[in-house]
């Protein structure tokens, strides 16, 4: 400090300092009486110093604060220690301001207490902001209390300082119990460590946290709680702790669990599905496929999911799939199709695929389930081939049946109510193709034939097929006669075999019928021929014997016998030759005459033959030939042909049903009635008898006249 400056008393300097501060100050003596006020005080209260001295200052203190203020002030004089006192002080304009009054004891250099010096600090603003803060906190607390979630607040050390009503209710707490409440004891033992670690970390780093834990509620039940907490700072920037929100996620967790279980079940189903399953999104991209599908498509999860059919499959295959997908979307019932796919095993697989739309918030998905029916398909293809083969064979057999020259008949029941035949069979029976030819059928009465065996008509149930089907035994080589209503007859040779069902019972029969009518006729003709031959041989021998005995009756002179006998045999032989040429069917009378007269060629000019063409039967022809031979022989020996001038006229006419044959000799030597009847005239008479006619032989003067008349239809 400079010594040349005017020196001021210490007291004066202090007064100047006190006045220079902007803060009201005052001092009191040991007797509590105010002894000094600086200018800022008197300026603030706007009262003269005199009024403030002593206990006057207290009049400025707000009446509500005054009594306690004065009392506290007084007590400090007992301790003589520094003190702090707050009160409201009336300003000169009547408004009150909060002041903190700091009292510092004054002591003499000897240390004797001489009162307090007081400094007043205006804390009005401080007080106001504190009140505002309190109000905000109250509102916050109110909000917290009524919030529909669980809220809490901790201090910087993690100690719980606030639990809202919801959280208190969760634990069943009254607000009083709060300071001592150990909430950590309610954490599920398995979650404690995790929660502690998270909380410690949040406190240490003064940051927020998000954790899930199981917390026991007041009923002892663990609930899934999700906690979100934020760090909480004071306006000063001091870390105050954490403010957290607890949300009960139990229901959601349960729903999630149920969903997860459902998804697990779905996954298991898909995994064990014997077919393929997949889902595509609305853009045709695979969003799910089961393992069978991955295998069949030859794709891994990465290769398939997110890709479309076009990305994975050949163009035609993809197109096929796309078109079927589109069909599935058109129809509410989905689409059931067969799809073909070359699979990773190198084979073309066929699957029955059910495709269906799945409505989804992200658009309509397409679901697909496929069952591989390749084996089935192959079997079907094979069956189709077999069927075709079978059909061809049947057609061949039917063609064969129709081409067969024999009748084939089939009955398909034991009663043979329907018998169908091949073409030949139908035409054999004069029926249209496809007719039911059964005599035990519904239209049996309309059939145009009857069936006989050995001259007896068959009872319909005894007919070969009916009998075979009834008895179940085959029939071989029987014959039957079919007589048609038009009178035609037919002989059939039949063989019938029964048809057996799988259980061994008879289900019908098959018959083969051969028309043997012609063969039968041939046989009959052959038999007739043999009979005829036999008859003729015997007959001829009988005739030869008769010729011999008759010739012998005429002469026993060998030479004459021989000549006559040989001549007659020769005539017989010529007649036979002629008949053989005509197949023994009869000969023309003119031919017969010519043959009979052929040994008499020399007399040709003397013989005249005239007559119409008339057929003579074999028996009569032989007799007539012998008759003509006898007449000609006699004529040559004794009659008209024994002279060159003689003539023989042979003529026949047809009169009604009769033939009249005339032998007339003229110009020969005179003839007379013979003494006894010769062989010739007897033969003529016998011939007439044989032919059913009449004969006359006259021995006229100019020659023999013989007439033989017989009916045309004679034997």
């Amino acid at each position, binding site marked *: 400090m400079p010594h040349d400056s005017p020196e001021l008393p210490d007291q004066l300097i202090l007064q100047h300092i006190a006045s220079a501060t902007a803060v009201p100050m005052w001092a009191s003596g040991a007797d509590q009486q105010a002894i000094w006020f600086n200018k800022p005080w008197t300026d603030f209260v706007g009262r003269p110093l005199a009024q403030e001295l002593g206990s006057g200052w207290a009049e400025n203190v707000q009446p509500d604060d005054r009594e306690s203020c004065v009392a506290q002030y007084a007590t400090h004089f007992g301790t003589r220690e520094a003190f702090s006192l707050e009160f409201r002080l009336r300003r000169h304009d009547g408004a009150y301001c909060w002041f903190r009054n700091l009292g510092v004891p004054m002591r003499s250099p000897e240390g004797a207490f001489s009162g307090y010096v007081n400094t007043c600090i205006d804390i009005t603003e401080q007080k106001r902001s504190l009140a505002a803060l309190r109000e905000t906190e109250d509102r916050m607390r109110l909000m917290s209390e009524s919030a529909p979630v669980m809220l809490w607040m901790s201090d910087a050390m993690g100690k719980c300082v606030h639990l809202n009503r919801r959280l208190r209710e969760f634990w069943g707490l009254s607000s009083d119990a709060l300071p001592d409440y150990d909430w950590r004891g309610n954490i599920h033992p398995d979650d404690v460590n995790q929660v502690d670690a998270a909380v410690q970390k949040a406190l240490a780093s003064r940051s927020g946290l998000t954790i899930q834990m199981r917390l026991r509620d007041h009923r002892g039940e663990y609930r899934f709680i999700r906690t979100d907490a934020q760090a909480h700072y004071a306006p000063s920037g001091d870390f105050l702790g954490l403010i957290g929100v607890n949300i009960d996620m139990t229901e959601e967790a349960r729903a999630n669990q149920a969903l997860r279980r459902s998804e697990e079940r779905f996954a298991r189903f898909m995994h064990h599905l014997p077919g393929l399953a997949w889902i595509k999104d609305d853009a045709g991209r695979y969003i799910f496929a089961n393992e069978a599908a991955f295998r069949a498509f030859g794709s891994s999860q990465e290769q398939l999911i997110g890709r479309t059919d076009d990305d994975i499959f050949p163009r035609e295959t993809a197109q096929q799939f796309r078109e079927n997908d589109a069909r599935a979307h058109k129809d509410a019932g989905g689409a059931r199709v067969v799809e073909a796919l070359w699979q990773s095993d190198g084979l073309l697989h066929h699957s029955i695929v059910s495709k269906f739309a799945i409505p989804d918030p992200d658009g309509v998905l397409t679901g697909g389930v496929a069952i591989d029916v390749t084996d089935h398909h192959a079997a079907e293809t094979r069956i189709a081939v077999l069927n075709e083969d079978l059909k061809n064979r049947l057609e061949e057999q039917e063609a064969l049946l129709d081409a067969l020259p024999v009748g084939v008949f089939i009955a398909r029941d034991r009663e043979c109510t329907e018998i169908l035949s091949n073409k030949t069979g139908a035409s054999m029976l004069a029926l249209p193709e496809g007719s039911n030819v059964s005599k035990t059928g519904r239209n049996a009465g309309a059939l145009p034939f009857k069936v006989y065996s050995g001259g007896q008509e068959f009872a319909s149930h005894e007919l070969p097929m009916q009998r075979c089907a009834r008895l179940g035994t085959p029939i071989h080589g029987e014959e039957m006669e079919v007589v048609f209503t038009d009178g035609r007859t037919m002989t059939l040779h039949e063989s019938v075999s029964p048809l057996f069902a799988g259980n061994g019972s008879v289900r019908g029969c098959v018959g083969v019928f051969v028309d043997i009518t012609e063969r039968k006729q041939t046989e009959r003709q052959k038999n007739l021929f043999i009979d005829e031959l036999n008859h003729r041989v*015997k007959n001829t*021998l*009988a005739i030869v*014997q008769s010729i011999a*005995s008759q010739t012998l009756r005429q002469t026993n002179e060998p030479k004459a016998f021989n000549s006559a006998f040989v001549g007659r045999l020769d005539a017989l032989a010529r007649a036979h030759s002629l008949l053989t040429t005509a197949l023994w069917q009869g000969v023309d009378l003119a031919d017969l005459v010519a043959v009979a007269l052929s040994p008499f060629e020399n007399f040709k000019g003397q013989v005249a033959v005239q007559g119409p063409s008339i057929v003579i039967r074999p028996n009569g022809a032989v007799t007539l030939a012998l008759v003509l031979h006898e007449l000609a022989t006699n004529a040559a020996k004794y009659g008209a042909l024994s002279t060159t001038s003689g003539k023989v006229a042979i003529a026949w006419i047809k009169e009604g049903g009769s033939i009249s044959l005339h032998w007339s000799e003229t110009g020969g030597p005179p003839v007379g009635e013979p003494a006894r009847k010769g062989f010739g005239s007897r033969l003529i008479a016998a011939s007439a*008898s*044989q*032919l*059913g006619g009449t004969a006359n032989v006259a021995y006229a003067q100019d020659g023999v006249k013989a007439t033989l008349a017989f009916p045309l239809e004679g034997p």
Partner: protein
Amino acid sequence: MGVRGARLILVEDEALLALDMQDMLEDMGCLVVGMAGRLDDALVLAETDFDLALLDMNLGGARIDPVAQRIAARGIPIIFVTGYGQRTLPPGIAAPVLDKPCSPDALRPLVGAILEARHAP
């Protein structure tokens, strides 16, 4: 009565055989009182008076049966003659059968026996 003078009819469709048979019978002393070669003629003949009938079993393909039945009905004996082994007699008739050509040695004893038996007392 014996063979001699017995009245016989002969039904035979072969003229030459009929002649020969007639001669044989007449050689035996019989009288051939009628001959026929056709069935209708034979039926007429069957009604005439005779003691024995020789009948060809087949006349131009027609069986002699109606004639034989008529004669049998009259109680007159019959001898059948057959040309080709036909052995089936007309129903209800019992009579001997001879094969053609028949010899006098076969015919004679048969005719004799029948005629003797017929008129035995």
